[in-house]
């Protein structure tokens, strides 16, 4: 019974296994990035950057056809161009990062739309943009896992300066020139993980899987490290639950996964142990000191 419900779908269906592997990789790669985006108070940057990579993917599709490699390259290039231009603008001029990002991703989106409409569109294109987690090839899973592995390694390397940059950018500035580099590397990681995510979930849902568990984690853990651990766990749990729901109830898998993550958020917002609505309502007797 439990086997049929929870294990069999993965044991007997290779596509479900591929989907699960991809989502676990996305959890380890993307969730920590999401936590940092939240800590930097730039939670919506993921959303903007996902729009920025979309034209790159579309252009690659127009010129190279349905090629995973070229669509990945196109997405990374478009996303990096927007992220780094926006980051550099924010550092060198008084324009704030969110404003300059808003400007550049709209430009990117417009260029993409122009090119795609000029060179024709295809049904498959929509498919690419909205993902298909249960039709992933082993090659796609490998790509996603490689991106996640690289992302984790780089994040581990820049962890301390990144924390310093979020908390007290002035200190990092006075301590050396590392701030700008760390900033650029971090934005590149956001782009990389979104490109990894779009292959599984589509560009829009990929943001959901990156951000929802990250926002949820603050209701459970106090430190940055703790929040990252919680976010990774929540992402895996959402993936398993969402995939099972799509298997048993034939729901759309990508949306199911993100929606489960959404349920986690709402529940945590209501009853999570830290700063939730319940935690505010329930007043424990105060301590002596």
């Amino acid at each position, binding site marked *: 019974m439990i086997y049929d419900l929870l294990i069999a779908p993965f044991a007997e269906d290779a596509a479900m296994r591929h989907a699960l592997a991809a989502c676990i990789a996305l959890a380890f790669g993307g969730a920590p990035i999401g936590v940092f985006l939240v800590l930097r108070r730039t939670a919506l940057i993921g959303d903007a950057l996902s729009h920025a990579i979309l034209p790159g993917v579309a252009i690659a599709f127009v010129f190279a056809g349905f090629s995973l490699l070229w669509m990945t390259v196109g997405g990374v290039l478009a996303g990096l161009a927007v992220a780094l231009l926006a980051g550099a603008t924010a550092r060198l001029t008084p324009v704030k990062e969110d404003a300059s990002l808003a400007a550049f991703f709209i430009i990117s989106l417009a260029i993409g739309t122009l090119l795609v409409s000029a060179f024709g569109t295809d049904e498959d294109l929509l498919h690419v943009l909205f993902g298909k987690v249960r039709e992933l090839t082993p090659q796609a899973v490998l790509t996603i896992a490689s991106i996640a592995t690289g992302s984790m390694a780089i994040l581990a390397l820049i962890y*301390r300066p990144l*924390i310093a940059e*979020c*908390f007290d950018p*002035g*200190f990092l500035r*006075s301590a050396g020139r590392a701030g700008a580099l760390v900033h650029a590397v971090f934005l590149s990681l956001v782009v990389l993980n979104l490109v990894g995510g779009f292959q599984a979930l589509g560009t829009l849902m990929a943001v959901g899987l990156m951000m929802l568990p990250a926002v949820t984690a603050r209701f459970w853990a*106090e*430190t*940055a490290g703790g929040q990252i651990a919680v976010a990774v766990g929540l992402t895996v749990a959402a993936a398993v639950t969402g995939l099972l729901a799509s298997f048993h109830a034939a729901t759309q898998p990508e949306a199911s996964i993100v929606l489960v993550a959404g349920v986690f958020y709402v529940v945590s917002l209501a009853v999570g142990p830290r700063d939730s609505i319940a935690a505010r309502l329930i007043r424990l007797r105060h301590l002596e000191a």
Partner: protein
Amino acid sequence: MVGPVVSLDNLTLGYRRHPAVHHVTGSFAPGSLTAIAGPNGAGKSTLLKALAGELKPLSGRIRLDGVRRRDIAYLPQLAAIDRTFPMTVLDLVALGAWRSAGLFGAIGKADMARVLRAIETVGLGGFEARTVGTLSGGQLQRALFARVLVQDAKVILLDEPFAAIDQHTTSDLLAILQRWGSEGRTVIAVLHDHEAVRAHFPQTLLLARECVAWGATAEALNAEHLLEARRMCEAFHDDAAVCAA
């Protein structure tokens, strides 16, 4: 007599061509404690920012002798720090071990011992695991002083370190300043409280956009100089002529 560690050479600083610090020349001796005093808008914070390397001079220059940019610790006013960030006091102070640990290296036993000692010195023993969001303003300032202690900087820049800090904390932190001076570190602090300046800072730079007086505190803060500083004109003029000096 050793030469100055930081000297200002006809330094003019400002924003969008308007000078906030105008043709200031002078120097800071190693191990000296100098207060920068003056009315609001006198250019005190601007001068500190430039000394920290965050602002390029409009003209003139800042010369460093025997110290590198990274030997300078800069503590800006409290507002610049994100206090909602989930960081513990230990992590905050450990950031000061930056130079010996490098950007990416682990913090070794010796550094960690220095971090714990610094936390003890500023009177925050037992607060190591507290997050910065739970600290009071005074406790946060103590933690930031501990970070400067760990940084082991040769030149220490403090921007209004005692604003909104109570008497008890202020006197604790002043004791740390004195110690820095006796260890040969150069301390430059923007301060408003003239009494505290007279009591604890042998040197004073009285700034009112121009340098009004720079030297021994008693002389620099005499009635005549203070009156002159108060007459400083705060306004900028969009149609101001190009400075000939």
